[in-house]
């Protein structure tokens, strides 16, 4: 029987639609990432760690919430690996767990000011909450 970790790895790879095996480890994804300085694990590490099944550290890392979904890494990867989709699949694996929503309707108010566009709020809920 497959281990829980192996099932999780397969699920992340399948739902991301990304092919982590194509990565040639050039680091361009991390080099172009606007959140690089804020991340504990960088885009190239997400790709490598999912490929090797070292997923637990990623699931528990704040780095999941630093990705801006700007697709710079997706567009600039010379191998078409699509790292942002790997980050997203790991983030979903994290927030789909019971009680793991990052943002709640009660907790959002403290972030708001009079000018903040609705777009910011709905986007954050889509990324941080299931």
């Amino acid at each position, binding site marked *: 029987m497959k281990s829980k970790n192996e099932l999780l790895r397969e699920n992340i790879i399948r*739902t991301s639609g990304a092919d982590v095996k194509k990565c040639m480890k050039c680091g361009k994804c991390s080099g172009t990432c606007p959140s690089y300085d804020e991340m504990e694990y960088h885009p190239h590490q997400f790709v490598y760690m999912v490929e090797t099944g070292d997923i637990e550290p990623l699931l528990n890392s704040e780095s999941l919430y*630093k990705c801006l979904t700007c697709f710079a890494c*997706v567009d600039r990867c010379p191998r078409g690996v699509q790292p942002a989709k790997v980050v997203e699949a790991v983030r979903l694996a994290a927030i789909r767990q019971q009680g793991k929503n990052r*943002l709640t309707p009660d907790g959002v108010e403290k972030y708001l000011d009079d000018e903040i*566009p609705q777009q*910011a709020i709905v986007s*954050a809920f*889509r*990324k941080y909450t299931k």
Partner: protein
Amino acid sequence: MKFLYYPGCTLKNKAKDLDIYARESALKLGFELIEVDEFQCCGGVFTTANDEIATKLASVRALKAAKAAGVPLVTVCSACHNVIKQTNYAMKNDAEFADKVNRYINDGDDYHGEAEVYHYLEVLRDIIGFDKIKEKCNGALKGKKIGAYYGCLLLRPSSVMGFDDPENPRIIEDMIKAAGAAPVIYGERNECCGGYAALEEPALVKKRCGIIDESAKAAGAEALVTACPLCRYNLVKNGANVPVLYFTELLHKALSEEI
């Protein structure tokens, strides 16, 4: 000429100028935007995971309305454009995903990406033509140095968006030129402002916006234009050195009878 129009949540609230000036300018240029009946919010960002169905239904419903009306679906907000365009691409190219969506909606009219999606800027470039703006332009913006701020959502992923050259875009600069002003090219115009991290990570967004603002200022921009309410909010909130306008405000200024 009529198009179906998807305004989205923000253009009905905090970004009313983006919406109003788009509609008024359209009439001046000979086309009309007819709002999708009872449209639902697109969600602001596309969820890339291919097992996410519910988060994409609002986009599919708007796309189906355009298919039924037999006209293209036009967006103005960068975020709506990105979400709807990526959803349409998935409906067209991912048979398993489309099948799940169609089974859920189950209204007897399966959808497979038949509708065409245009951003307002693409309508200007590809259907109306920038020459039409030049023809109707009042000259009020002559000599003004304007920087286009694309951000990320209009351009990427470029294989899906097909909007412009993602690393060296020109569509907004061409509009600025047609409106009688002088476009300013600067390095950070297609890099992310920090987006929705504005809520939880204001320091990250401040850093990003500072880099963009410095880049635009160094190139001599006197104002920036954008199609994204969140880009505008982030840049203004973080102390941009220059005014940040919606591209439709600039267009409206160029087409206005009162100078």
